[in-house]
């Protein structure tokens, strides 16, 4: 039997699963449901009691269930206990700014050391023939500016860091 927590403090629901491979029983707040996972052509469908669900992974914590996007936070018992001790928990809004799509830097709107407000424009990047403004995820000071106009970059390339004002 493996135990899980779905959701966050104040809104969590307990889940428990026992079974082998693609079959088992899921215990949840409304009772128990027999579970069968079914694969056809690389796709996993789930039978939860009598209900059928088509689940496709989309991203970290993001799933398409029956054609609709669902975002969940699932922790195993162990992860939840760590979190209760203050060892886990949700991350701060990061100061590292990365390129969200592959593209070419058209212009850099800020300079190293410049103070920026949350939402202020940092760079203009062209991707698929459209100009996109990359905005500051939080207020702070621009550090480690790593790109210049004309650079062609892959998705995820580090652009610059924004150091929070209180730490600078």
């Amino acid at each position, binding site marked *: 039997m493996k135990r899980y927590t779905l959701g966050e403090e104040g809104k969590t*629901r307990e889940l428990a699963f026992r079974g082998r491979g693609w079959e088992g029983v899921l215990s949840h707040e409304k009772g128990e449901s027999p579970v069968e996972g079914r694969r056809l052509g690389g796709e*996993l469908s789930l039978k939860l009691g009598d209900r059928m669900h088509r689940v496709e992974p989309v991203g970290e*914590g993001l799933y398409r269930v029956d*054609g609709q996007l669902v975002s969940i936070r699932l922790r195993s018992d162990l992860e939840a206990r760590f979190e209760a001790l203050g060892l886990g928990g949700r991350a701060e809004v990061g100061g590292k700014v990365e390129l969200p799509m592959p593209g070419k830097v058209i212009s850099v709107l800020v300079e190293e050391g410049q103070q920026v407000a949350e939402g202020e424009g940092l760079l203009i990047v062209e*991707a698929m023939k459209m100009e996109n403004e990359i905005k500051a995820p939080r207020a702070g000071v621009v550090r480690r500016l790593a790109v210049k106009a004309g650079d062609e970059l892959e998705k995820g390339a580090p652009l610059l860091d924004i150091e929070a004002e209180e730490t600078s």
Partner: protein
Amino acid sequence: MFSKILIANRGEIVLRVIRTAREMGIRTVAVYSEIDRDSPHVLEADEAVCLGPAPSSQSYLRADRILEEAKRLGAEAIHPGYGFLSENADFARACEQQGLAFIGPTAEVIETMGSKTRARQTMIAAGVPVVPGTESALADPQEAVEVARKIGLPVMIKAAAGGGGKGMRLVEREEELVKAVEAATREAKASFGNGDVYIEKFVARPHHIEVQILADTHGTVLHLGERECSVQRRHQKVVEESPSPFVDEKTRAALCETAVQAARAVGYRNAGTIEFLMDKDRNFYFLEMNTRLQVEHAVTEMVTGIDLVEQQLRVAAGEKLQLSQERIEFRGHAIECRVCAEDCLAGFVPATGRVTAYQPPEGPGVRMDSGLRPGLSIGMHYDPMMAKLICWHGTREGAIARSRRALREFRLRGVTHNLDFCDWVLALPEFVQGDYSTKLLGEHPYSLDHADGEQARAAALWRILHEAEGEVATPPGNGSGKGKGEHSPWYWKHRSL
């Protein structure tokens, strides 16, 4: 009729043209850039030639190479699709000069309509209503400030050679004007090789409504009804429908008649589209003319039963249209969803990836136009639109329900897509009521709502079962997962069908 044509484009529109050509017994030549060598538009053609490296300027925009290959392979006509060289007057002229039929209007018409400022002047002369604004390109950014003061803010800055939202900016405050004109100029130059921009008065909460035109070289000009294209993000259409639920019978008659008049005024031939802005009182203003097939032409095809590509080919071959305005019948309602590689939760940024699964929806009233296959790589070089889903039903309500059913049935993995986003759009109250402006998506930012227990449990189970199997728990796909969802207990779009 032609025995062989070359299709100077890529992706779904090439397949669209190949299909009709094949039905008419016409052989097709595809062209491709090196990166597209294994793309369906290449594999499905009868013949194919490589034009050059991935950047469009070295491949799909190489007019010289395209003409050379068309002649070498014995093609008699060139279908330009949309985008790329489709509204390039020089290309149209070069085709005709070298004895190849250009499947489009004359170079002169493209020139006139391709310059938004000249198009405005022509329309004013023809008695077609236009939006107040500059009649020629801005001399410098400062001129924008003067014009804006005269016609009043807000204003739109637009590329004279533009289309598809590129080189376009809305400016509401005077201090933003200069910066916006500069950005639009840069974007226009990069996209169209022409940095001219102009200013128009901004119509508040307008509807974007366009009329499909079909004209031959024998003086027949027909309309095939209108399309409502007001669902736009980043100034680009994403959901279109025909007929428009906002246009009433009286307005429709005037609108379509005006469109025919506009096409007649320039001596148009080919399928074409007159775009209008319509305000809340159903006054309409000429916006621009697209002298080519539109992405959204399929909704008109489903409602009228007329194959627009077939008609384009017949017109280009000099045939007389075998249609008359009275015999064109409009049946039911059609809606198109553009399926794009983009991350809608992260502000619609384009996404890349490799398609690992593609299972299009099927059944009554569903039409797919795609260039998708499992294994296909979606890169950063071209437009992020991968496929079009067009659904028809006898009623608008039924067409919405069918589209939503089809979107949910659609499986597409390996690249982040907008299927859920389209489903969310179709459930917005304004959309359901049939009265929405181009502001719709700006007024309704897309995000995830709370999920119900059952669906959240199913998603959780997916993770649990994969962990139990010892598989990688982090799923494939390059969805960033950014957005509200990431920091929330569990969310989903709660919209019952």
